[in-house]
């Protein structure tokens, strides 16, 4: 046993174990979030949601997952074989890396690197490529339109996202998630960045909704316009992977948001990882609440919000933060 634990000191083994743990976490979360989302939708709409499989429908996501896995893999005629199958994999693969540098507890971190924030932002950007490939590769007009929307949307919203994150990095003087969290533990609740950077938090959250294609910004898969957008032609596990990736990205952005703005694992009484999970899930619940409340925005409005409001505001915020830091110093 001790020998096995000794092995963990080897960075490579540690990384491997962390990756496996994260993948398990993602898969489990996918199941849980599907269930939670359907329950939230149900309760908001005054109905029970999934109920029949297992007690209170608890096994419903498992049944759904089994169904998706069991389905035949179908590719439309005229689709690009390589791109078509690469897209769902490419969409899902970077998620594991995104979760690596995030500290779930004081010592519970997969990869404690100085540029953790950069790593997450870089790898989450890969998702766009996957959507683009899916839309292009599946030889479907709706998918193509969805892909075009996805690219424009993600590229636009990455800017305010980065700018708001940068403001936090300024105040904490670090790109390392562990250090950012540590800087928020000094004065309890009040030292959370959400109080010193409320605007940045709002901008981050809105941009995160757009980045993860969640309602009201779910334009790439707007079903009343584009049937299902970029994944129109996908079924079975191809669709399953996109679906899993979407929920995983929700976890990623919510985890980043809780680390950057809500003090990460810091909190009284309970061990750190419970606080972290609680914060992530609260943010995810809010995202779901949005989805089941609002209509979808239009494409040009989406970009208008970004270019006319979020980017100027985040720039002002960033400059203000920089000035404040210099003045305080």
């Amino acid at each position, binding site marked *: 046993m001790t020998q096995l634990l000794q092995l963990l000191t080897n960075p490579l083994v540690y990384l491997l174990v962390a990756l496996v743990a994260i993948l398990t976490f993602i898969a489990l979360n996918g199941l849980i979030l599907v269930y939670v989302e359907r329950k*939230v939708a*149900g*309760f*908001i*709409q*005054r*109905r*029970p949601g999934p*109920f029949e499989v297992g007690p209170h429908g608890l096994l419903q996501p498992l049944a759904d997952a089994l169904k998706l896995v069991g389905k035949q893999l179908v590719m439309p005629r005229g689709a690009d074989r390589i791109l078509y199958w690469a897209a769902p994999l490419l969409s899902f693969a970077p998620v594991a890396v995104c979760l690596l540098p995030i500290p779930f507890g004081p010592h519970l971190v997969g990869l404690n690197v100085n540029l953790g924030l950069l790593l997450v932002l870089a790898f989450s950007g890969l998702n766009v490529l996957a959507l683009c490939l899916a839309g292009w590769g599946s030889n479907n007009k709706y998918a193509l339109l969805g892909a075009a929307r996805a690219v424009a949307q993600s590229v636009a919203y990455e800017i305010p996202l980065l700018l708001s994150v940068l403001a936090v990095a300024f105040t904490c003087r670090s790109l390392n998630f562990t250090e950012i969290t540590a800087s928020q533990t000094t004065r309890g609740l009040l030292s959370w960045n959400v109080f010193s950077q409320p605007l940045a938090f709002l901008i981050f959250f809105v941009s995160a909704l757009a980045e993860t294609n969640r309602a009201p910004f779910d334009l790439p898969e707007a079903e009343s316009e584009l049937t299902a957008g970029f994944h129109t032609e996908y079924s079975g596990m191809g669709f399953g992977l996109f679906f899993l990736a979407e929920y995983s990205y929700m976890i990623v952005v919510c985890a980043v948001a809780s680390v950057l703005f809500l003090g990460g694992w810091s909190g009284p009484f309970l061990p750190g990882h419970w606080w972290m999970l609680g914060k992530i899930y609260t943010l995810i619940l809010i995202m779901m*609440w*949005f989805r*089941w*409340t*609002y209509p979808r925005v239009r494409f040009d409005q989406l970009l208008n919000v970004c270019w006319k*409001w979020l980017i100027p505001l985040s720039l002002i915020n960033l400059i203000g933060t920089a000035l404040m830091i210099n003045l305080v110093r």
Partner: protein
Amino acid sequence: MTTIQKTMKGLWSLIVGLKVTGKEFCRPWITVHYPRQEVTNLDSYRGHIDLVPYPDDSNKPLCIVCRRCEETCPSGCIRIDGHLPGAESGEAARELLLISEVPLPGSKAREPIHAADKTLRVLDGFALNYNFCSLCGLCVQVCPVSSLTFSSDVYLAGASRADFEFDLLRRLRDRAKSPAKLRKAA
């Protein structure tokens, strides 16, 4: 300035929307959980038609084979066979039994059918093809002797078209034989 005001108002409307759904989230669900619960609006349900028997003889339908319903039915679901008393079953010409050409629902002119007339015809078969029925209720309405009524079997289901081709006369007799069983089914 007005732009900012408008935006603020807009953002407030988003919060109002969240409040509405948030409130609904906390309230109990309103859907009926079917196998565990049942809906309560079944008393006004109208199923396919059924024959009404004499109050004193549950084997004998009130039907006088005037065939108004057969004629009125927009979808041609009903087929009636009958004969004049004294004649052999099925012997009677269909034309003989025809009373009206185009009856009007709600018409008062039901009187020409005399009491003696009512006993003149004997019903041999009342076939209802429920597959084509649109449940308009015109047949029930044109019936001069109120021999038709709506059944109330909400959970009627079948696996083939043949399951919905009913012999109403037989249903009536079955019901007369075992009222309890049919009540359970209904």
